């Protein structure tokens, strides 16, 4: 077991290293000249050159990469030769000269929004997905099952932006049930927070719940076919206990795996949902950065998001190994 953990951690570290490398060089070849972008109206080649120096773009890419990675571990200083150098402490993901702010600060500012969006969406879809999935399995083949699976399929199919726009059209514009979304933190104004978040949660849940309904249904059906369930039933245990205690628990492993990865992916920002409901999360931050060609921010977000997923992969794998005795770890 210990050997397995060590191997997985080593491979994750390697992956993270590859990730920084890929992300850095992928974005380094973008032509939008960041030096030109910070230069403004009265711009001469000399100013661009100086800005390039200022932004440390005049050194070889390998060295830029070294400084970038160095910054993550030891911090770094930007604009060294100027009257006001910028100290970026470890972990330094870079500095956005466009917004005069450290990338990490920008990410930290946007992260709570995405966090609430992801957590709320996650709970909603797990609740709907698991319960309807079980109901569907229990009524297998009957109209309830078919209806649920039909809804699941449609929900799973629709593009998220279409769901979002339709919800806005009916709930907000046509029926005036909710005000327009306006982000606020739950501690500041809980009512407003819930009013803002309920549609984004539903949008996200519609996409994911459908998948979990199907997954849950399949798992439960599969487990029902196994001997120990038949035994439990034969023992005369109530159906409720059979379903919840035996069937669901055994079938839960792949669901947990998928849920972990999906949640991690979502924590990196839901670009479309955040865009539609103008939530200032990581997704909006990244879209803004793309539109402004703000490379340090794009690089930073990509790195954080991808790390989240890689890390979640590791956690899920380890959990899997612990929970499910069938997994060989030797």
């Amino acid at each position, binding site marked *: 077991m210990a050997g397995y953990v060590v191997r997985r951690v080593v491979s994750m570290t390697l*992956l993270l290293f590859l990730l920084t490398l890929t992300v850095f060089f992928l974005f380094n070849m973008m032509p939008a000249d960041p030096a030109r972008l910070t230069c403004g109206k009265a711009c001469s080649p000399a100013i661009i050159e100086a800005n390039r120096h200022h932004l440390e773009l005049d050194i070889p890419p390998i060295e830029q990469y070294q400084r970038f990675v160095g910054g993550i571990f030891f911090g770094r200083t930007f604009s060294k030769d100027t009257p006001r150098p910028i100290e970026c402490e470890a972990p330094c993901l870079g500095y956005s000269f466009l917004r005069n702010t450290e990338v990490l600060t920008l990410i930290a500012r946007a992260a709570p929004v995405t966090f609430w969006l992801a957590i709320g969406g996650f709970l909603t879809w797990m609740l709907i997905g698991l319960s309807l999935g079980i109901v569907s399995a229990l009524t297998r083949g009957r109209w309830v099952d078919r209806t649920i699976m039909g809804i699941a*399929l449609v929900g799973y*199919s629709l*593009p998220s*932006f*279409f769901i979002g*726009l339709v919800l806005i059209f009916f709930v907000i514009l046509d029926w005036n049930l909710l005000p327009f979304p306006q982000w606020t933190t739950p501690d500041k104004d809980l009512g407003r927070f819930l009013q803002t978040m309920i549609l984004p949660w539903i949008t996200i849940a519609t996409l994911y719940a459908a998948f979990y309904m199907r997954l849950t249904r399949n798992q439960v059906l599969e487990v029902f076919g196994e001997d120990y369930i038949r035994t439990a039933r034969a023992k005369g245990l109530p159906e409720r206990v059979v379903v919840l205690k035996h069937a669901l628990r055994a079938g839960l492993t792949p669901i947990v795996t998928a849920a972990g990865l999906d949640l991690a992916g979502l924590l990196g920002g839901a*670009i479309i949902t955040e865009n539609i409901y103008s939530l200032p999360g990581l997704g909006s931050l990244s879209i803004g950065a793309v539109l402004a060609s703000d490379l340090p921010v*794009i690089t930073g977000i990509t790195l954080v998001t991808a790390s989240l997923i890689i890390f979640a992969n590791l956690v899920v794998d380890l959990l899997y190994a612990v929970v499910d005795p069938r997994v060989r770890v030797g």
Partner: protein
Amino acid sequence: MVGRSLRQIVWARLRRDKVAMTCLVVLIVYYMIGILGPMVGPSFGLDPYAYDRAAISNRGGAPVLDFGGISAAHPLGVEWGTGRDILSQLLWGLRISLVVATTAAFLSTAIGVIVGIIAGYAGGWTDMVIGRLMDLVLAFPFLLIILALSNVLTDRITDLGVPSGNPSRILYLILVISSFGWPYLARIVRGQVISLREREFVEAAVAMGSGRRRILFTEILPNLWAPILVYATLLLPAYIGTEAALSFLGVGVIPPDTTFGAMLANSVNYFHAVPTYLFIPGTILAVLVVSFNLLGDALRDALDPRVTR
């Protein structure tokens, strides 16, 4: 007694599935419209690029007639601000969506199958490296990457000699979507190959001294087509959605051409005044995607030997 081939069994099962057959018909119609619409349309006076100034008022560019300017000349209304015909735009846009999604699905499937077979059959280091590569690709927030790289890579593609503008952009979409889509299938194929590798007929082939390539492509590949087919059918709707999402966010084809996503993005500014801008393209898109998914689902059931009907 004549044994029926798997293909015949599957087809017989599908034919009994009314929903699946409906979807199949719907999809065939979509493809026909996508292919024929832009060819036949002009003879019915359809032109997605023609500006109908008379259909647009001077008051903010709103269509003159109600319901987005629906009239005999424009059965689905006209675009806000320009008076271009919505029906024509949908016809021409459908073709682009289908081309992007179909080609990208084909490419991802091809890459996924090849990589999966190699990883599964070779095992060892090759498998390990491919596995990590798949992890890496899967870890990327691909929507963000596609957005961020769209301008630079489109320019690179143009530099390679592809005509600038939409040909380059469409090629970019196809390439970049498929380069993020292959690992899922590769994983499935790899798993299948590993289990097939140990089976008697492969061992027999090896014992007979067949070459590796022959074993891979004549012994193993034919046994994989069921999962591949199902997966490809499910990839298509996903890619149609992806293409729409990208156009919605402003990456994708450029004017004067348009697609579902771009039309929906534009509808955001006006849909309270003209709901048809949202619901017409949205519904057409939804029907397309749902049909693909239903068909894919039915296909999976039909191919699953455990399902009894």
